[in-house]
């Protein structure tokens, strides 16, 4: 196929996604402040365009979760996250922007829940909504007591930037929707490794649990045994011993995202990383103190 034919095919196969992204672009551009301070054009048309665009983009994947409630939650969280993100970057009032950011963060946390990450969802809400946003709001209030500032009413180079960003987004979405990438899953744990792991974990005798699909449920034992047999056969096919972060593997008792599993991972495989992150936090704290203006002697 020649280049132009390829391009035509690409456009035809992804017409829905492309059209919806175009709508979204127009929505953003509608709401985005201009180069000069101009009155707002009203958010409703932009909001409609954005909603349509986001929905179209998600619809173009043509897939649903097995569970209806999950599907509904996905739609709700995705649309809220993306629309709030759009509103956040186009808001002319930084306070609103921060609040939209909080909303987008909350929705993202909802998506985390959907992806088996309840702990992360909670942690993000606590860190962002509880700490970051509030602090930022304080700063905004402190800085902008006198109301609207000119620099919040203008934005530079909106059109090219939006186009470039959507080229990237379009590339990603077209690439993955046309030919979903094949990911290399970590091979099942073979006997020796599992024994080592079992000795470590004691109660993890049941081996690995498949975390595929929307499964947070534990698979029936006989099915697991069958799977193990298949895995052993695969392992015998002269493959080198796989390198894995053993403690990060999901097990039956510690499925992906559970507090225990995540804890084993963090304080097992990533023990040093945790220490390192702690050091970075220390540096950042002391750094923030050092950056903050020194107060006068005796003053609070």
């Amino acid at each position: 196929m020649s280049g132009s034919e390829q391009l035509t095919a690409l456009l035809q196969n992804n017409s829905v996604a492309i059209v919806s992204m175009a709508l979204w672009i127009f929505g953003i551009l509608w709401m985005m402040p201009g180069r000069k301070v101009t009155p707002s054009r009203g958010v409703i048309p932009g909001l409609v365009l954005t909603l349509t665009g986001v929905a179209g983009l998600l619809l173009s994947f043509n897939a649903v979760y097995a569970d209806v409630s999950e599907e509904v939650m996905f739609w709700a969280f995705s649309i809220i996250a993306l629309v709030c993100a759009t509103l956040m970057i186009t808001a002319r009032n930084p306070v609103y922007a921060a609040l939209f950011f909080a909303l987008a963060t909350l929705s993202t946390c909802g998506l985390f829940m959907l992806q088996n990450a309840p702990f992360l969802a909670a942690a993000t809400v606590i860190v962002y909504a509880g700490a970051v946003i509030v602090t930022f709001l304080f700063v905004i209030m402190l800085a902008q007591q006198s109301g609207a500032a000119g620099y919040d009413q203008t934005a530079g180079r909106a059109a090219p930037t939006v186009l470039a960003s959507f080229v990237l987004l379009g590339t990603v979405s077209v690439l993955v929707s046309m030919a979903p990438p094949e990911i290399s899953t970590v091979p099942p744990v073979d006997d020796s490794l599992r024994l080592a792991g079992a000795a470590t974990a004691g109660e993890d005798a049941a081996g690995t649990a498949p975390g595929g699909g929307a499964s947070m449920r534990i698979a029936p034992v006989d099915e697991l045994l069958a799977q193990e047999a298949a895995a052993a056969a695969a392992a015998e096919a002269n493959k080198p011993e796989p390198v894995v972060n053993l403690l990060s593997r999901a097990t039956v008792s510690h499925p992906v995202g559970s507090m225990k599993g995540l804890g084993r991972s963090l304080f097992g495989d990533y023990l040093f990383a945790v220490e390192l992150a702690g050091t970075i936090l220390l540096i950042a704290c002391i750094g923030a103190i050092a950056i903050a203006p020194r107060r006068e002697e005796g003053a609070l």
Partner: protein
Amino acid sequence: MSETISSMLPPDLLLLLLILIPGAPLVSAIVTAVFGPKLLRCRSHLPCWSALAVSFICSLLVLLALPTAADPNALDVIPPAASSAPDESGEPVAGDGQAADQQELPAIAAVDIQSSSRSTAASPELIVVGPTWLELGQMSVGFDLRVDSISAIMLAMVTGVSLLVALFGSGYMHGDGGYPRFFAAVSGFVFSMCMLVMANNFVLLFFFWEMVGLCSYLLIGFWFHKPSAAAASRKAFVVNRIGDFGLIMAIFLILTRFGSVSFSDVLGNPGMIADLAAADETLLPLICFCLFLGAMGKSAQFPLQVWLPDAMEGPTPVSALIHAATMVTAGIYLVARCTPLFMFAPDVQVLVSATGAITSLIAALIALTQTDLKRVLAYSTVSQLGFMFMALGCGAAGAEVTTPAVTAGMFHLFTHAYFKALLFLAAGSVMHAMGDVIDMRYFSGLRKALPITHWTFLVGAAALAGVPLLAGFWSKDEILAVLGTASSTGNYQSIFRIIRIVATVTALLTAFYTFRAYFMTFWGEERFPVEAGHHPHEATPIMAWPLRILAVCAALIGLAVGPTHQFQTYLQRTVGLKPYEAHFHLDVMVMSAVIAIAGITLAWSFYVVSPAVPARIAGMLAPFYLLSQKKFFLDEILYGIVVAPLKIFGRICVFFDRAVIDCLIDSLATVPASVSGLLKNFQGGVVTSYAGVMWFGAVAAVVVALSLF
């Protein structure tokens, strides 16, 4: 006597001598250059004196020891420690004797002294294999030194004359601001000249050939604030470059055809030369022509002689040093050294002779009418160099004439060095006394005021004129004799007949103009220029003694070595020369004596007896007089046919450069400016626009990478 000396000189010591000869002046040059201006000041002559004295003594020892030192027959008188070194292989062997030597002289690694495998009693030679200096392909150039007969003679002459000149110079230059500079340059000059004659390969020779040119440039332009001196030094340098071009071409040709630049390999290999000459009959003439071109430049032969008279702008000791005794002899040395090559190019040899004849005649004619004493001497130098070339070219008459021809040329070079140095120094003494006035029209009758100068100048002039029994007489006889031989044998008889006539006429003219200068300066009524002050003073002792010594040399050196043919016998043993039986040519002697005396008489009658005659003759032959006085308009002709077209060409080049190249380059140079002028707009300081460009770059990179994937 030589046996005793060589037995006193073990090879270690001999090596030390060989290294000291150029080494002492080098050290002196460096010391004087570094410490002279601040520390030594008016004592700057001391390093130079001592170095040149050391050098001279070493040269004398080497000269005397050479015939036996490397003689295989004499090996048994050399201590056994060294007898391992001169072996048959010709390769450097580090014997026991050398170990101690290397400790003494750590600077020169792997030095070995040996007699060449080809060395016979006939051609003794000492070769020092120095450290390799340049490796290019199969060519390897080292600091290899070689002393054989011709080098030894040259060394003795160069160091001896230089020593006397340095002594004289300390008196002459006393009080000059550049006193240390003078002695540094003189030391450097002597070092270069010694290395030039000691070099054992063409590249090293060329290197020091250029060093000599550089030092002469520094010395001619010694008073660089004088525009004429600066111009003269530049002229000398540029004209010499033309000759150097020839030399370097010759070296390339030799390298490509012979595969080596070593004298031992090239010159010491007559069989190979013959083979190459047979294989390609234009090769050797071409090489020889190129070599001769180099010699023409350095030895001021027509038409490249123009630089030498102008070079008189340097201090007079410098004239004596460079332009009479040493530097200009480099060309003669080169041609003589390359005799084995020239033997296979008789046409070029004839050219050498013819060039010499033309040069000597023209120079003599010009010298007739010059009124500047130093210029007369300068033209006489050119003329005498022409004589030497005349002799060197006589080898064209046949192989058996070659050696007499070369020895005759070298002999004249040898004697000429002494009397010409003497004449220049005497002229310097006159100049010193006359307050730097050297034009003979402004003074006369100095014989009473400057008795020593007068007597020494008279001896030198007589020697130059060829008065019997003085130095010039013997060597000029040799040349006339060898010219006679050439005009009666071989293929080029008719040409050599003409050359012989020219030589005879030139000899007459030489006698005439020399004594014209002598009579004009020292006879007649006593007149001094105003610059001399009320009373001209005779030379100080430090200037007078070199004059006396040189006068003795000029008077006796010919007598010492001429009748006994010792010089010829010694020189014959150079590599490439064939021994021959030297004998007297009484007829020639008588003739040349008559000519000399005739010339002197003529001068006496013109300038002492009836001083009005020359003016009348000049009036009668006005055009010719003018021609001579204006140096045959050679400078003007050269300017017209060479310099002016080149200048026009240069103008065109400049125009092209300005209008085309500069425009191109300028427009090219605006590219970065305009490009960066565009790029600077991205650098406006706004951080989000920086991030924007980063983002565009990243997205573009993704798209490009995917489309290339």
